[in-house]
C-alpha cells in the first residue's frame, strides 16, 4: 500500500480492501519507525489522525466518499489547522496552537482526507535545505547525509520515504519544486491566486502559493482539485470557474511545443543534472513533442530581484510576531522596546533575521526607490520575458535545481550559494506562473534529478498532461529511496 497511487488507494478504500483507519495506522507506524531519523514531521497526529480516519470510514460506509476520502495526507507546518500546533518551523510559534483552519486545511477536511501530521520546514519557509528549521534539519531519504531541499523539505522527505502518500507544500521561490526535485517527487506550484493563501502563514505575500507534493502527476492533479478554488477571504484569490486538473492527463503530446531557455543551461548547471534533463527532453521528442530554443534574457536578474521583494514583504509580514498576543515572549525584559527586541531576537533564527534586516533596509527611506521599486521593475521585465516566450511554445522545460541534493552543512554557511539553488525556480514566482518538478533521472551518487515544467497562466492541466504522459513512458517517479 505504501507505494500505491491515490487512485489505487481510493479504489482499495471503496472496495473495502482496506479501511481508512488501517491505512492511517500503517503510515503512522512507518512514521513512528522512520521519522526519528528523518525528522520530516514536527507534529504527528496519532489519535487525532485516527479520529479523522474513523469519520472517513463512516463517510465511505454512507456512500458519500469523494475521490480522496479516507486517504492520509501530511500538511506543511505553515498551514494553520484548528487544534494543531502550527509552528512554521520557528521557536517563535513553538507554542502556537491554531484556533482556526486555513482554507486549504478546510478543503482537505471537506474532501475527507486524514491528516497524519504537520511536516518540518525551513523557518517561516526561508531556506532551500531545511536546515533553518528550529526543529532541526530534515534528512533526505535517498541519503541521510544530504539535504531534502526546502523550504517544504519535511513534506518532500515524508512523501519520498513513504511516510505519507501525499503532502502539501508552499512555494515562494521554489519551495515545492526544489525539494520535490531533490527527493525524486512530483510537486506543483499553481498560478498565483489559484490556491487560497488564507491561513497559510505569510512569507512573501505576492509570491507565496500552496500546492501538492506527491509521487506522480496524476496524484498532484487529484490533490490540486481539492486545494484550488476561489476564496473570498483571500483578496488575491482568483475568481474562476472550478476546473478538473486531471481532465487532460491522457491527451497525447503530439504537436506540443516545448520551449528550452538557453539561460537554464548556462554556467552553474552541474553536468549530471544537464544530462538527465537533456535525456528527458529527448524522451519528450520521442513522445511527439518538439523542442524550441527560447530566451529569457532577464532571468539572471531574478535572484537579486527576489532577494529584495521577498525580504521586503517578509519584514512586514513577520512584524506581527512581537510577543504581545501569542508566540514566544522573552521571559525577562525591561520596557516595551526591550520586550520586542528580546522576544524577536530569541524567537527568530539567523536566516529569518537576515531577511528581516534586508527587507527593512530596502524599504527604508532613501533606499526604497533604488531597491524595492527597481526590483518591481525587474519583476515586470521577467514576466514580460515569459509572455514573449509563450508566443513560441506551450510549455517551458529545464532543470528544477542546478545540482542534485547537496550534503547537509554544505551551503549553510554561505547564504548566496544557498540562494542560487533556486536560480531556475524564482523567476516563475516573480511572474506568477505555474511550475512543477518531476523526477527525470539519477545524478551524482544516485541522487534524484528534477525536470522543471513551466506553464503559461492557468496552464496547470497542460503541465500535468505533459508530466503524466512522461510518467507513463518512464519509471523515475516510481523509484523509491532505499529505506
Amino acid at each position, binding site marked *: 500500500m505504501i507505494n500505491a497511487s491515490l487512485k489505487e488507494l481510493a479504489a482499495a478504500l471503496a472496495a473495502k480492501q482496506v479501511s481508512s483507519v488501517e491505512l492511517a495506522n500503517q503510515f503512522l507506524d512507518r512514521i513512528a519507525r522512520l521519522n526519528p531519523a528523518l525528522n520530516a514531521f514536527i507534529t504527528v497526529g496519532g489519535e487525532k489522525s485516527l479520529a479523522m480516519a474513523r469519520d472517513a470510514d463512516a463517510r465511505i460506509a454512507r456512500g458519500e466518499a469523494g475521490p480522496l476520502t479516507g486517504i492520509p495526507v501530511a500538511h506543511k507546518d505553515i498551514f494553520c489547522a484548528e487544534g494543531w500546533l502550527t509552528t512554521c518551523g520557528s521557536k517563535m510559534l513553538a507554542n502556537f496552537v491554531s484556533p482556526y483552519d486555513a482554507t486549504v486545511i478546510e478543503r482537505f477536511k471537506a474532501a475527507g482526507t486524514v491528516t497524519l501530521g504537520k511536516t518540518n520546514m525551513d523557518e517561516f519557509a526561508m531556506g532551500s535545505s531545511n536546515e533553518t528549521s528550529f526543529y532541526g534539519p530534515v534528512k533526505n531519504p535517498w541519503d541521510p547525509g544530504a539535504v531534502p531541499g526546502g523550504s517544504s523539505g519535511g513534506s518532500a522527505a515524508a512523501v519520498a520515504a513513504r511516510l505519507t502518500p501525499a503532502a502539501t507544500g508552499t512555494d515562494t521561490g521554489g519551495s515545492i519544486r526544489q525539494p520535490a526535485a531533490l527527493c525524486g517527487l512530483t510537486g506543483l506550484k499553481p498560478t498565483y491566486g489559484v490556491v487560497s493563501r488564507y491561513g497559510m502563514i505569510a512569507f512573501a505575500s505576492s509570491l507565496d502559493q500552496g500546492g501538492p507534493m506527491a509521487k506522480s502527476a496524476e496524484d498532484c492533479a487529484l490533490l490540486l482539485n481539492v486545494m484550488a478554488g476561489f476564496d473570498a477571504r483571500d483578496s*488575491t484569490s482568483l475568481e474562476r470557474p472550478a476546473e478538473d486538473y486531471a481532465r487532460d492527463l491522457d491527451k497525447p503530446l503530439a504537436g506540443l511545443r516545448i520551449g528550452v531557455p538557453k539561460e537554464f543551461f548556462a554556467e552553474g548547471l552541474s553536468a549530471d543534472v544537464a544530462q538527465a534533463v537533456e535525456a528527458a527532453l529527448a524522451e519528450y521528442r520521442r513522445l511527439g513533442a518538439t523542442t524550441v530554443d527560447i530566451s529569457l534574457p532577464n532571468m539572471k536578474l531574478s535572484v537579486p530581484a527576489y532577494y529584495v521583494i521577498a525580504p521586503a514583504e517578509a519584514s*512586514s509580514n513577520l512584524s506581527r510576531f512581537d510577543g504581545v498576543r501569542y508566540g514566544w515572549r522573552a521571559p525577562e525584559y525591561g520596557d516595551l522596546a526591550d520586550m520586542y527586541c528580546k522576544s524577536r531576537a530569541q524567537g527568530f533564527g539567523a536566516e529569518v533575521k537576515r531577511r528581516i534586516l534586508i527587507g527593512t533596509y530596502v524599504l527604508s527611506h532613501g533606499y526604497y526607490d533604488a531597491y524595492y521599486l527597481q526590483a518591481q521593475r525587474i519583476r515586470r521585465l521577467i514576466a514580460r520575458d515569459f509572455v514573449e516566450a509563450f508566443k513560441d511554445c506551450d510549455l517551458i522545460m529545464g532543470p528544477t535545481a542546478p545540482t542534485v541534493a547537496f550534503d547537509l552543512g554544505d551551503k549553510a554557511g554561505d547564504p548566496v550559494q544557498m540562494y542560487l539553488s533556486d536560480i531556475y525556480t524564482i523567476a516563475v514566482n516573480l511572474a506568477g506562473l505555474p511550475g512543477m518538478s518531476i523526477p527525470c533521472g539519477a545524478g551524482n551518487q544516485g541522487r534524484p534529478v528534477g525536470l522543471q515544467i513551466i506553464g503559461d497562466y492557468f496552464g496547470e492541466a497542460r503541465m500535468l498532461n505533459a508530466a503524466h504522459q512522461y510518467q507513463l513512458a518512464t519509471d523515475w517517479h516510481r523509484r523509491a529511496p532505499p529505506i
Partner: protein
Amino acid sequence: MGTANWEIVIGLETHAQLNTASKIFSGASTAFGAAPNSQACAVDIALPGVLPVLNRGAVERAIRFGLAVGGTIAPHSVFARKNYFYPDLPKGYQISQYELPVVSGGSFAIRVSSGGTATEKTVRLTRAHLEEDAGKSLHEDFHGKSGIDLNRAGTPLLEIVSEPDMRSASEAVAYARALHALVRWIGICDGNMQEGSFRCDANVSVRPVGSDVLGTRREIKNLNSFRFLQQAIEYEARWQIETLEDGGRIVQSTVLFDPATGQTRAMRSKEEAHDYRYFPDPDLLPLVISPAWIEEVRAAMPELPEEMKARFVSDYGLSAYDAAALTAARETADFFEQAVAAAGAGNAKACANWVMGELAARLNREEKDTADAPVTPQQLAGLVARIADGTISGKIAKEIFDALWNGEGQDADAIIEAKGLKQISDSGALEKLIDDVLAANPKSVEEFRAGKEKAFNALVGQAMKATKGKANPQQVNELLRKKLGT
C-alpha cells in the same frame, strides 16, 4: 512686533470613523462600547496566516465624501502598509493609503463670524484616504502592566486632509464644524466626538504678515472636541509667535495638547522617530472604482447643503443667511422641510423663524439634539398655521410651544381649545373691551391726546392684559386709533 504682525496658518487632518456595521478589512462588528476584545476576530488580532478583505461599504462612503466635496475619485488607488511596532497595532503595520488616495482635491464652504458679521470662505482639501484604526492601550487598572483592547482595531477611517487655508483658531473650528456637519449630512460618520468618531490633528505655523512662505509647522495630535481645537491652536500659535519674537526657531514636530493645562508640549523625539517604510500591501489588490459605481453612489446621494441652501432661497424666499443657518445641520434642515411641508410654502419664513429661534433656543438650553426634540415638525407647522390665520398671536404661540414641548397636548389646536387661548378677533367684543379700557384709563387718553405716542402703547398693553393676550393685537390697534379719533 506683536500678534497683529503675524499670520497664523492652519491645516487640519481629520479622522472620520465611517459608520459601517463591520470593520474595513474583517467581518467583526464596529459597535462601540462592547467588552474589551469581544469584537476582535482572527483578522483583527492578526493571527498568523489571516488576510484582509476590503469592506465595500467603506469605499462607498469614501466615494460619497468625494462627490460631496467635488473631489476627484481615483479610478485606481492603492492600500499601503505603514510599518511600526506598538502593542495596539496587532499586525505591526497599519493598512492605509499613501501615494494614491481614493479622493483627491475638492473643497467646501465654511462660515466664519467675526465682529457680528458672517463671511463665507472656501477651504480646499488635499485628499481623503481610507485606513484602519488601531486598538487601544489601557494603562490603568492593570497594576504596572498595560491592557490591550482590540475592539477598535480595524475600524474604518476616512482621513480628510485640508490645505493650509485657515488663518485663525476660529476658522479652524468653523472648518471642523462644517466638516463634522457634512460627514453626518451625507451619512458616512456618526460624528460622535466623545467616542472618538471624529478627531482632528492641526498643523499650525506662523509667518510675518505679507509673507507667502509657509513657516515651520508643528502638528497637534488627536483633538477630540471643538473647544480643545480652539484652545490648542490659540496656545500653539501664541507660543510659536513668542518663540520667534524671542529669537528662537520652530522645529518641525508633533505636539500633544493637555486639556488640563491648556498647553501643548512636544512629544519626545523617540515617540516620533519613525521610518514607516510604506509599501503597497501585497495582500490587497489595487482599489478599482468604476464610473458605474460612482454613478450608483451619486444617484443615492442626499441633497447636499449647498444645493439645499440655494433651493431654500429660491423656493421659499428665505434670505441666504437663514438658508445657511437652516442647512448647517441635516437634522435641522429636515425638521424645517417637514414643517414647511405641513404648514405650506407660504409659511416657510415663519417656520424658519421658529426653527432657528424658539426651537434652537430650547434645544440648546436643554442640550438636546434636533432628533430628540419633543415637538414634531408637524406640531410646529400646526402652530405656525394658527398664527397665520389669526387664531392666536405670536405671544400666545410661545405659550403653546412650551405646552407642546412639555407634552401637554397633541397639537396646537388641542392646546388652544383646552386652555381657551383662541385670539379674540370678534370686533363687537373688542369694541366693548376698548371702550372699557378707555374709560378706565383717562390719564393715558389725555396724555395721548397731548401727543405722547407712548401712552398709546400703554392702552394697547391694557387691552392685551385684560384679555390675557388673546386679543388680536392688530385689531386692538386699529380700534383704539379709531376711537381716539386719529
